[in-house]
């Protein structure tokens, strides 16, 4: 990699930095309870809730830091935070 004068960066390149390793607890869906309200996707500070074709979502564990906002805000309690096994 050559640096560009002035320190210009190419868009979206933090994607090389997998922050999933920060996590102690990981969110897990209970799809039986999920109503596809999209709130988890909307609130995730790490854009780590990924929509699936069937309208449900899945977590991008490469980046999810395990903050638990999705679990705390889920109106149907369809997300559980479970201890990360390392």
């Amino acid at each position, binding site marked *: 990699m050559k*640096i*560009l*004068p002035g320190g*210009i*960066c190419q868009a979206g390149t933090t994607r090389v930095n997998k922050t999933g390793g920060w996590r102690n607890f990981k969110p897990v869906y209970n799809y039986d309870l999920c109503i596809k309200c999209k709130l988890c996707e909307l609130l995730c500070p790490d854009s780590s809730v990924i929509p699936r074709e069937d309208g449900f979502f899945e977590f991008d564990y490469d980046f999810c830091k395990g903050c638990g906002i999705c679990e705390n805000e889920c109106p149907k309690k369809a997300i559980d935070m479970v201890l990360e096994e390392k």
Partner: protein
Amino acid sequence: MPRENKLDKEKMVVVEGSYAVAHAVKTCRPNVISAYPITPQTHIVEDLSQFMADGEIPNCEYINVESEFSALSALVGSAAVGARCYSATTAQGLALMHEVLFNMSGMRLPTVMTIVNRALSAPINIWNDQQDSISQRDTGWIQLYAEDIQEISDMTAQAYKISEDKDVLMPAMTCMDGFILSHVYEPVVLLEQDLTDKFLPKYEPEYTLDPKDPLSYGAFADPNYYTEFRYLQEQAMQNALKKIEDVANEFYDIYGRYYGGLIDEYRTEDADIIIMAMGSVIGTVKDVIDKLRNRNVKVGLLKVRAFRPFPADAIRNVVRDAKVIVTLDKNITLGLNEGALCTETKSILYNTDINVPVIGYMLGHGGRDIKVDTIERIIDEAHEVIRNGIKTESQFIDLREEIL
């Protein structure tokens, strides 16, 4: 090489120095002008405002900012979207910009800013010296100093071409002595629009802030990267050395006017004494040299046009065979009892085979007149140095001892 400055008398008009600069700026087709009024810069921005009010600067926005800090900050944004930018300031205003100066050069954003040199407070003083721009010498801005109104006018176009060059991409200050040049009426050739359109290409930066290609500007660089950015800035300054010379020559080819590149020489060929100076004092020194040359005194002048980048090689080549170098500084590095030109000149001679003594004089502070007899006395003292060596390396001259 010294060249003949071919001024076309037919084209000459008598205007105020500030107007000549404002006209030059207009001719360079700026896109954004952002400035805050401060004496003695005001006439430049007033004239530009009138041009705007009269619709004479197409595709341009004038931002009446609320401070010098914002004047330059706005141009950081404008330059980053690909606009050709202009500002002007002096003294307190330039000091207030200090943080932004580093920021703009660090982001490698070209611009041109006229510095109408003035003393810094306290005590408050609105008159000329060069402490303001000299104090900003480490900020990564190219600094060019003009001798007269014609030169500062023409230097404006040159500065854009240097600053915007892809191997340079560093902002540039063009410096003119406050009041002495800014408020004086002289016959000048106003920068010609047709020639400038030929001389100065449209500014087309390789990178800009553009939603179609979303780049980030101003990321933070940790110890793994910061040094390399500083290195690249220094490389850009070194590239500017050549570019300043080239642009002066290109300017001469198109306009027929020349004031030197990095430096200029006046009667230095066989000079024992070489006086080094910057700005409007050059005129006075040339007059003294002419007078003394008639009495066979071997004295010449080395005019420093570019203070940043500092033209080490160009200066060494000129002073090599002199017997003494005299620096004139309208500034002081407090705590060193020296002006900056004195310090820098000594530094570029050390570790070389050139062994010419350097003596420095600090003068013209806060608008004090630099008189012919002061320069003559300095030259007398330089003779004394040739005869008996240096007694005082650097000193104030024309101090009013009676009030101390």
